[in-house]
């Protein structure tokens, strides 16, 4: 498996293990949409540190994941974009709205804690 998805409390942690083919990216997208419902997750972290390339296809898939998850009540944070990939994305001029990013997995979880706390406050 090129992506390991773990359930950690209210969150799903998807760790990408190697560069992914488009088929695998699509599979990840569907699996996450599925699992968010199954576990009633409130947050998703996608660790993309192992991706060699984040091109227009991957960006589109990430956006779709974020939007789908949001419709199902979960926030998504992308973690681990490397310096080189960050520069490539900027030069490519990929539109990343509405992605949230964090330095790494730990930071992503901190960010999710803040985001979901915001949800509670909204509810209360």
């Amino acid at each position, binding site marked *: 498996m090129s992506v390991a998805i773990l359930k950690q409390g209210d969150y799903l942690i998807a760790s990408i293990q190697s*560069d992914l*083919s*488009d088929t695998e990216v699509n599979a990840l997208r569907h699996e996450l949409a599925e699992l968010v419902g199954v576990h009633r997750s409130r947050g998703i972290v996608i660790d993309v540190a192992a991706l*060699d390339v984040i*091109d227009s296809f991957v960006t589109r898939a990430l956006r779709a994941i974020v939007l789908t998850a949001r419709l199902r009540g979960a926030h998504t944070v992308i973690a681990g974009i490397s310096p080189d990939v960050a520069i490539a994305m900027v030069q*490519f001029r990929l539109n990343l709205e509405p992605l949230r990013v964090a330095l790494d997995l730990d930071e992503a979880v901190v960010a999710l804690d803040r985001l979901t706390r915001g949800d509670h406050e909204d509810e209360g």
Partner: protein
Amino acid sequence: MKGEVRLAISTDADLVAARAQGRAMAQQLGFPRPDPTLIATAISEIARNIVMHAGTGEIVLRPFEEHDRYGLEVVAIDAGPGIRDVEAALRDDYSARGGLGLGLPGARRLMDGFQLHSDAAGTTVTMTKWRYRDELARARAERRRRA
């Protein structure tokens, strides 16, 4: 420096191989960071266009060495249906198939040279990225260009 490498492209697994090969070659040629990643990203886009819009084709990776610079030429060749409006295809957000339409213009921004030829017989994209060997070589080349 070793010669060119030709890669057949028809599946999305080929696409993964093509960008890995492009990155490895760029590193071997001495491209500094982040160039290998920029090159791999551009390759990913034009290889995907072959798979999505033409079915099958080929990517040729061709290193070149010159007195004051070195580089990599990437050529994507297919015998697919071709692009009717080449100008439009190079604009951001233009996609004939509900894609993002960012592939070609984005790849172009990542590379130094970019040419697109397309007609009913197929499509050829030629991209180059190159670097001066050092700052001095760059300064000299600029001086010569101005003269």
